[in-house]
């Protein structure tokens, strides 16, 4: 069994890997279904609104504008492209939110949360569920699934804002989110692979390198010499080890940002992603690394080709891989953070404004029990969910009375006996 076979059994491959075409078509489908439902819901809301106003005889000034707009033209829904940009904004916000905690939430947790958001919005539309309310929930769920435990209370208190975020607002959409994730919580990140690659490169730099499994003839000394002979990197480094360290830092930064915000995870495997990022950070170093695994070099003219490289049986694989890595690098390189790009920001504001008018009114918390005109809570929980939470709170209160110990009463009794 090889690593690829194992990766193919992962949920990331089985459920969350696409071609560009299949990804686009899925997003179009989600958008089409949601648009239809939003239009129907807004029509119903308008009808209900009209019947109440005519019964009261007094027109409600607050929501007039909205009603008129719907009369004037067919409700204007977001396009799949607009949805994507809108969700991306909240992916960037997730990264920032994770940063506000003291200490900041680990990169891995934030990356997992961002992928949760991206996955959730493949089969859900931001017109149905506002990303603002899903975002915090995704980040909290990621702390649980990535073993970075903090209590919900602690988490909710850490969310900045004029109005404090309640625990219910955070946890409300959890089940919905998990359903959107198709109950797969594992995200295979490129970070672990990068750490391994960097360790290997550092070992080679120190003359302790191991030859690749298919190129066993290489000695640690040969590897070290080849590494020292690679063409200069993007910045001047004091030593090869320093250069590897810098490349490591730059690559991590790309993985933290571009790799998260783009569709890289949907289109490429974790190893393809980190190798592509390393190519962007320090191309000669990344190519050297590939050479140690698959032989080469393919293009370099300044190094005398090793005779064994000339009949490299892995040549085809190396060529194919380089093509994939080049595509992935281009995707990563094209990424521009929204906040640093006024053009994108202006477009986003337009989308947000449009979104305000096509948010599905029926997907807010218990709309039937919310009086018309008042703002509904963003948590789309059902009635039974509300009841369940009430029951839970009651039980908690009882529990709190019986024991203050986080270890629970039973073990405490056990200890007292001893």
């Amino acid at each position, binding site marked *: *069994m090889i690593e690829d076979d*194992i990766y193919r*059994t*992962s*949920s990331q*491959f*089985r*459920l*969350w*890997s*696409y*071609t560009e075409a*299949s990804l686009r078509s*899925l997003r179009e489908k*989600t958008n089409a*279904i*949601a648009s*239809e*439902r939003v239009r129907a819901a807004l029509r119903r809301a308008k009808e209900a609104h009209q019947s109440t106003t005519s019964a009261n005889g007094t027109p409600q000034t607050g929501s007039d504008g909205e009603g008129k707009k719907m009369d004037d033209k067919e409700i204007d829904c977001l396009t799949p492209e607009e949805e994507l940009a809108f969700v991306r904004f909240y992916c960037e916000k997730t990264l920032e939110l994770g940063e506000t905690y003291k200490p900041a939430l680990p990169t*891995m947790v934030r990356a997992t949360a961002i992928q949760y958001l991206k996955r*959730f919005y493949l*089969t*859900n*539309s931001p017109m*149905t569920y506002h990303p603002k309310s899903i975002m915090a929930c995704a980040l*909290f769920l990621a702390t*649980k*699934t990535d*073993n970075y*435990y903090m*209590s*919900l209370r602690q988490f909710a208190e850490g969310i900045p804002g004029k109005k404090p975020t309640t*625990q219910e607002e955070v*946890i409300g959409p*959890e089940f919905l989110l*998990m*359903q*959107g994730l*198709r*109950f*797969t*919580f*594992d995200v295979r990140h490129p970070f*672990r692979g990068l*750490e391994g690659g960097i*360790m290997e490169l550092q070992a080679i730099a120190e003359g302790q390198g191991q030859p690749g499994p298919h190129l066993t003839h290489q000695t640690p000394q040969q590897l070290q010499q080849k590494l020292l002979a690679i063409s200069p990197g993007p910045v001047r480094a004091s030593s090869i080890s320093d250069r590897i360290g810098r490349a490591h830092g730059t690559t991590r930064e790309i993985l933290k940002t571009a790799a998260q915000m783009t569709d890289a995870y949907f*289109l490429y495997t974790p190893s393809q992603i980190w190798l592509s990022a390393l190519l962007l950070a320090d191309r000669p170093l990344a190519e050297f690394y590939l050479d140690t695994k698959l032989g080469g070099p393919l293009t370099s003219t300044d190094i005398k080709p090793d005779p064994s490289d000339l009949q490299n049986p892995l040549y085809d694989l190396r060529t194919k891989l380089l093509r994939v890595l080049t595509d992935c690098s281009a995707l990563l390189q094209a990424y521009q953070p929204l906040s640093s790009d006024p053009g994108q920001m202006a477009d986003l504001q337009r989308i947000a404004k449009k979104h305000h008018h096509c948010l599905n009114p029926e997907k807010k918390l218990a709309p039937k029990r919310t009086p018309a005109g008042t703002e509904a809570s963003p948590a789309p929980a*059902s009635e*039974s*969910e509300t009841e*369940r939470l009430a029951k*839970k709170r009651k039980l*908690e209160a009882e529990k709190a009375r019986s024991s203050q110990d*986080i*270890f629970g009463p*039973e*073990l405490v009794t*056990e*200890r007292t006996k*001893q």
Partner: protein
Amino acid sequence: MAASPFASRSPSMTVASPNTLRLRAGVTDWPPRPAFTSKPLAKADQELTEQLNEDVRQKYVKDKKLGEGTYAVVFLGYLRNDPASKVAIKKIKVNAEYKDGLTMDAIREVKYLQELSHPNVIALHDVFSSKDQNLNLVLEFLPRGDLEMLIKDSDIQYGLADIKAWMGMLARGVWFCHENFVLHRDIKPNNLLIASDGEVKLADFGLARSFADPYLNMTHQVITRWYRPPELLYGRDNTPVPWTYDQISKICDAFGTPTEANWPGVSKLPNYIPTDPASIVPLQGREFFYRQFPTAGPVGADLLMAMCSLDPRNRITAVEALRHHWWTIDPRPTRNEDLPQKQKSGAKKMGDDLSRRGGQIDDGPFKNAARQLDFGAMK
């Protein structure tokens, strides 16, 4: 790259031993077709995500209850279009004590079982939500009880070849978890369930986690107490000392006392308890293991010794254990169909095993202890 992403891991796609399940209907899912294409857009009375869940839910029918515990209710179930098929449907109970959403044990179990597909790990076929936000795990049906049941039954006779077969299946399951960077952290006989064809399957991933990333530490407070290795007992721990000491002393009596000589650095561990030099038990050699486990034979004793090394750095890994030559010498492991088994159905036992919380022993004074300790570790 998978062009059709919405294939559920239906029984036909998992590598569960073929005899265990003959879920013919699963075949229709391969090659996987995106479920949503079959739905006409005009009938979109549900969001796409809800449609997908409904499609999974409709695949199965819940039958009689097999067991109920603190954590879950387990039902017998079958595929709607193949009533002869059998699955176990584990419905996770809402834990009223835990207010932070889905509990950690449920999250861990779902997370890891979704990733692990191996003949010696219980197969998770599907997960779906039913009304009132209940989480349902569709698991492989394992009707022949667990290894603990066999061990405790004095009427059952088993020999070296049987042990070798069971141990081999366990070792392969553990190896596969580790190969996938997953630590089970609660391996014990009643978490090893037996399929109708005799295959042993590692179950209950409620305490599992991934390997820590480089440079990060993990907690020591895991594994049902009685099965913990000495380094975890010596680790940072909030539990009362006498109990830890008692367990450590039992390990020392059996295998030898950990000292700086046989385990460099042991005295630096946070909970290390120095032993009076007069009562130090010398490290046990191969003869001891052979004496204690004569059935294993001298080569088997060698393997056991390597697996029970006090110093964790010298303890063999799962893959090293699998490469040991004990597996290839006579006798060959018993074939699954010839393995000893209980006559009466173990389906109820499966129900009990699957509805229990991880780290929990069926009964006794320390019930729930491991679970609560684990809570402490999550601070």
